[in-house]
């Protein structure tokens, strides 16, 4: 009993048939081959599966694929422009915010959603935004630093 849906992923328009019981996470990874989005728990408790749907950061493990009809999805693969990394990606590398890297795509996307909406967040606001992304490697310290660094740069540029 497949359903036909049409949606946008990163820069591509996709049209395909999905089974109602597929989650968005499964659609992204197994059908579209975009393996950057990860499954850490499958129940919305760890944030590793975070993607951006119509501008909002969400857990793709909690959504059904069928609900994507007409929507726009951004995964980690959609952040870089050609070979130009997104400032968050650059900052994560430079600040040592990446250890095992499994939580990284999810956290970068939440950070992007945060900065798109609030370009000058306080440290508390940053921690509040990423509270739904569990990391077992970094203690979050350098992740927060990386996000702050991007926010600072954005605000410097604004001041110019």
């Amino acid at each position, binding site marked *: 009993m497949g359903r036909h849906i049409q949606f946008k992923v990163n820069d591509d328009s996709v049209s395909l048939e999905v089974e109602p019981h597929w989650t968005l996470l499964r659609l992204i990874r197994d059908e579209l081959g975009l393996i950057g989005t990860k499954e850490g728990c499958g129940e919305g408790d760890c944030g590793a599966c975070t993607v951006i749907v119509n501008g909002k950061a969400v857990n793709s493990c909690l959504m059904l694929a*069928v609900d994507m009809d007409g929507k726009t999805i951004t995964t980690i693969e959609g952040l870089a422009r050609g070979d130009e990394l997104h400032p968050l990606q650059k900052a994560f590398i430079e600040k040592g915010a990446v250890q095992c890297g499994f939580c990284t795509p999810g956290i970068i996307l939440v950070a992007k959603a945060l900065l798109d909406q609030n370009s000058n967040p306080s440290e508390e606001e940053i921690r509040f935004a990423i509270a739904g992304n569990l990391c077992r490697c970094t203690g979050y310290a350098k992740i927060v630093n990386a996000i702050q660094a991007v926010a600072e740069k954005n605000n410097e540029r604004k001041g110019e």
Partner: protein
Amino acid sequence: MHRFDYYEPRTVEEACSLLLKFGPDASVLAGGTDLIPKMKNGLIVPKCVINIKKIPDLDIIKVDRETGLSIGTLTLISELATHPFILERFPVLSTAAKSIGSLQVRNLATLGGNLCNAAPSADMAPGLLVTDSALKIAGPSGSREMFVEEFFVAPGKVNLGRGEMLTEVRVPFSPANTKQVYLKHSIRQAMDIAIVGVAVSLSLEERAGVCKKARIALGAVAPTPVRAKRTEEIILGKRLNEIPLAMVGEVVAQEAAPISDVRGSAGYRSEIVSKLTIKAIKSL
């Protein structure tokens, strides 16, 4: 997840007729933050899933300057947490919304879902109880209204008949000079289900400053979210600084009926409900 038959009704009437047809074989899908994990763990195995998100206009927040708020059942928790009017006039609701899950979960979860899932710890319930909010329910024989207090029956069970669905929550304006707060006790600063939740709404007389209307609601310490009516009576007629806090603490603990589970023991919950209620009143 197991396979299921899937429906996307376009109107409330269509949804109700599907619900009438399938009864207990169907589950309603809104945000999915409670339903999907339960389905994955085999706790709920519906034959069919009815996705109500394609029904237009169920996610609207309307402010009527006379009567109050009308919040559509599909309103996102993230919307409730950040809506300027709610932040200003109903912090008891925005605080509760902000405390739910994570940013990602709040971007999916709905007000209706939080209520209909009927967890004893449902964070939105205490705030709606202390504001004397009402629910609009659509069904095969038309729509009806009920106070939030009548909605919760047992853990996971709500007062909806076959073929009925929640469409709207109506929050009346509180009297002028009302102070409200929602406090949640949890172990972590985010992500946690409440071990104890307390909402307090005290409306004070303008001149004398005595409390003319008191509402206290408790979450996670009874089979359903409940009002603490005996405790309210103790507060009625008193000025804020005259409220006998020790007695309040004692009585509110008696009105709670917590259980011990993996999140906390009954004894601890009893203690916390007293202390949290006192803290809530003091903060006003």
